[in-house]
């Protein structure tokens, strides 16, 4: 029995609950492992992502040749390319998520804090944007303005900020009603100070959940674009591009598809699992049954 259970601070309780979710913890471990491999892996392999091994074009995975995942149709080692691709996919995931976080948190906090007419207008805009088929517009952007990697970051980031804006606004409204914020206002604290000191720290939990759930969405969007041939340009590669190449050859050289596909699926799976676990851990606090 966890004797500390009822007396620990809220943050400790959440952490305890998360630790108890074994699936989520395993997912965290896997992600950490993948991130580390993606970063240092390519240096450890004798092969490089671009160098062509003319003696082993489109060869099957084998330990003897050193190509543990096989090679692609140009003779490049798939293991290294998969790790490179993971690195790029994760990087885009992180950066685009931060972009949407930046936009969304500020937008939502401002709307929620000032309330009234400002809030109504800002949320109306969000409603309108929500209904639009963003994916199509991103594709349009790619078509019209070229496949610049910065454009990709910003375009993808701009898709996802709506959700976090809504959530942050809701939280801000709730926190605003709390007594201690009233007290701060009576004492003459400025708007920005209140936002920074009282509201933002309470948003931390929600924001963390959001980050873990958005990263896979972003990676998915980027993979989608790359799959269609509209994303990352050669020689850089991402998991989506790798899957695309692999899909073309899957009838005869199925390994070209399978390895990147597994990596992609595992990354997405793990992030979703962690996000879910975090959300559950944060939520139980509010839905405890009452004894009477």
């Amino acid at each position, binding site marked *: 029995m966890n004797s500390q259970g009822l007396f620990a601070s809220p943050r400790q309780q959440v952490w305890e609950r998360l630790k108890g979710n074994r699936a989520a913890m395993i997912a965290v471990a896997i992600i950490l492992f993948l991130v580390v491999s993606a970063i240092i892996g390519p240096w450890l392999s004798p092969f490089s992502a671009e160098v062509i091994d003319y003696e082993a074009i489109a060869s099957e995975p084998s330990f003897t040749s050193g190509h543990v995942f096989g090679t692609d149709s140009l003779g490049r080692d798939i293991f290294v390319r998969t790790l490179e691709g993971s690195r790029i996919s994760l990087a885009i995931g992180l950066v685009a998520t931060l972009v949407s976080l930046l936009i969304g948190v500020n937008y939502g906090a401002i709307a929620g804090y000032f309330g009234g007419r400002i809030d109504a207008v800002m949320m109306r805009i969000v409603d*309108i944007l929500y209904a639009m088929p963003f994916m199509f517009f991103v594709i349009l952007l790619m078509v019209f303005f070229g496949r610049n990697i910065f454009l990709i970051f910003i375009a993808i980031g701009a898709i996802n900020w709506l959700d976090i804006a809504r959530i942050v606004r809701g939280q801000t409204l709730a926190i605003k009603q709390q007594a201690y914020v009233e007290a701060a206002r009576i004492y003459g604290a400025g708007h920005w100070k209140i936002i920074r000191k009282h509201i933002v720290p309470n948003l931390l939990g929600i924001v963390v959940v959001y980050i873990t759930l958005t990263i896979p969405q972003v990676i998915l969007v980027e993979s989608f674009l790359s799959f269609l041939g509209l994303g990352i340009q050669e020689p850089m590669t991402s998991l989506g591009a790798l899957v695309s190449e692999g899909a073309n050859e899957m009838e005869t050289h199925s390994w070209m598809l399978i390895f990147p596909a597994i990596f992609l699926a595992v990354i*997405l799976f793990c992030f979703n699992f962690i996000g879910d676990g975090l959300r559950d851990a944060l939520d139980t606090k509010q839905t405890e049954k009452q004894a009477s």
Partner: protein
Amino acid sequence: MLDYFIRRLLGAIPTIFIIIFISFFLIRLAPGGPFDFDRSLAPEIQANLNAKYHLDEPVYVQFGYYLKDIVRGDFGPSFQYKNYTVTELIVQGFPVSMQLGLSAIILALLLGCSAGIFAAYKQNSRFDYLVMAISMTGISIPNFVMAPLLILLFAIALSIFPAGGWNDGAFQNQVLPIITLALPQIAYIARITRGSMIEVLRTSYIRTAFSKGLPTVYILTRHALKPTLLPVISYLGPAIAGLITGSVVVEQIYGIPGLGRYFVQGALNRDYTLVMGVAVFYGMLIIVLNLLVDILYGWLDPQIRIRSKQA
């Protein structure tokens, strides 16, 4: 009810307007696009373009013409398929996509709701964990990964279904595409239904129903089902958007001549008008369908239905 409907309708119009507005400006701003006059053109061609697109008149007038054309259903000629207008291509491709999409959403609703309801009723059982795990997979594995895997398994290894092609809508050709399209939606709907039902089963009014000695099946269908399904109906809007986005990939991989594939081909071949036309078309479609979903929701929820009658 009418009041609710009108308010929703009025809300939808600005959105459609903005979509058309954005398309208009994107196509004019695109570097290397049909309206990029950095490269100089032969005078007759320039004159033709000026006449057709009213380029010598102010921008807002041009926008007016554009708007008028769209209202008449004219999206302009396709750049890529020289003998066709965009509208003709849409008319050709959309019914195919719609067939797949409709089948997929029906499949998703049937499977997703049943799985979710059952998982909620047997919460924390092995079936429940299974449903949650499978749905997590459905959400995490992108359709462009799932499709090749399905093809690998069912078409190549087991040879049950063809690996692609439309074959005029033959049944076997539809199976894998529909499943691929439906999978993520089945997953989302199952999760939403499960979460919703768990919450509903915890409510005070369900406890009241049990306390009256009513049979369990009756309580599940008569008392619990409707409140459980309302969030699912809300989800239909995003679900449709998801299906439309998914169709782009699914049609590409399975070689299905639907609107999604036209869109991708257009994107890769820089067919500006086609790409714009499809985006605007799908945009409007999504908005209209969202409107219908909203109205359906309003009709089902007594508080909304009756309150607006009285208003």
